[in-house]
């Protein structure tokens, strides 16, 4: 059992390390994620799991609730969900 925990931890650490190395190599792209518009983030993230929702499906207040729900469920970053909700509110 102890051995299994060890293997698990090692795998996790390796995974994180690889992720950081790969991403630091592409740091020149760093501006890309934070410069994205709400519209882009809406189109690129929602579709990872489900069809892209039409902004007109809900009102401003509802989008806030859905935003919080999806931020938690999909592990979206604060920056992403804030921009997406703002976009939905301008387009509904």
């Amino acid at each position, binding site marked *: 059992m102890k051995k299994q925990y060890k293997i698990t931890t090692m795998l996790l650490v390796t995974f994180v390390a690889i992720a950081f190395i790969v991403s630091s190599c592409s740091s020149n792209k760093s501006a890309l994620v934070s*410069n*994205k*518009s709400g*519209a*882009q983030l*809406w*189109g*690129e993230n929602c*579709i990872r799991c489900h*069809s*892209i*929702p*039409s*902004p*007109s499906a809900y009102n401003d207040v509802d989008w806030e609730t859905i935003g919080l729900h999806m931020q938690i469920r999909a592990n979206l970053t604060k920056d992403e969900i804030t921009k997406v909700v703002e*976009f939905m509110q*301008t*387009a*509904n």
Partner: protein
Amino acid sequence: MKKQIFKFSLASLGILLFMSFAVQQTGEWIAPEEADALVNPYKNNTEATKEGKKQFNQLCAICHGNKGKGDGIAGAALNPKPANFTTVKFQSQTDGAIFWKMTNGRSPMASYKEILTDDQRWQLVNYLRTLSKK
């Protein structure tokens, strides 16, 4: 067994086809006449067109498509469908009408009154003009 499967498949296809004709009709979007009187301060300004392209890629392409054909990834979900900027119908509008539409929006098209400045919206109009079929 095979016959039943065939019958069932046929019935299901029938239903699918029926549903496909139930596509919602959408009213045409026409800008008010006074919009036609608006004058584009950047007419024939190529620098402005370049700026417009940047805005387009960030804000518009996701629905209207990289080439403006109305086929962006997020457009599939929308009703009415995003406009195809390459059509004669779209390009026959005045600059003012196009400017007015992006300023005011019509759900699910966002209003860009607050997000973009007047100048930025005119620059976008310039870029949209380059998307027409040649």
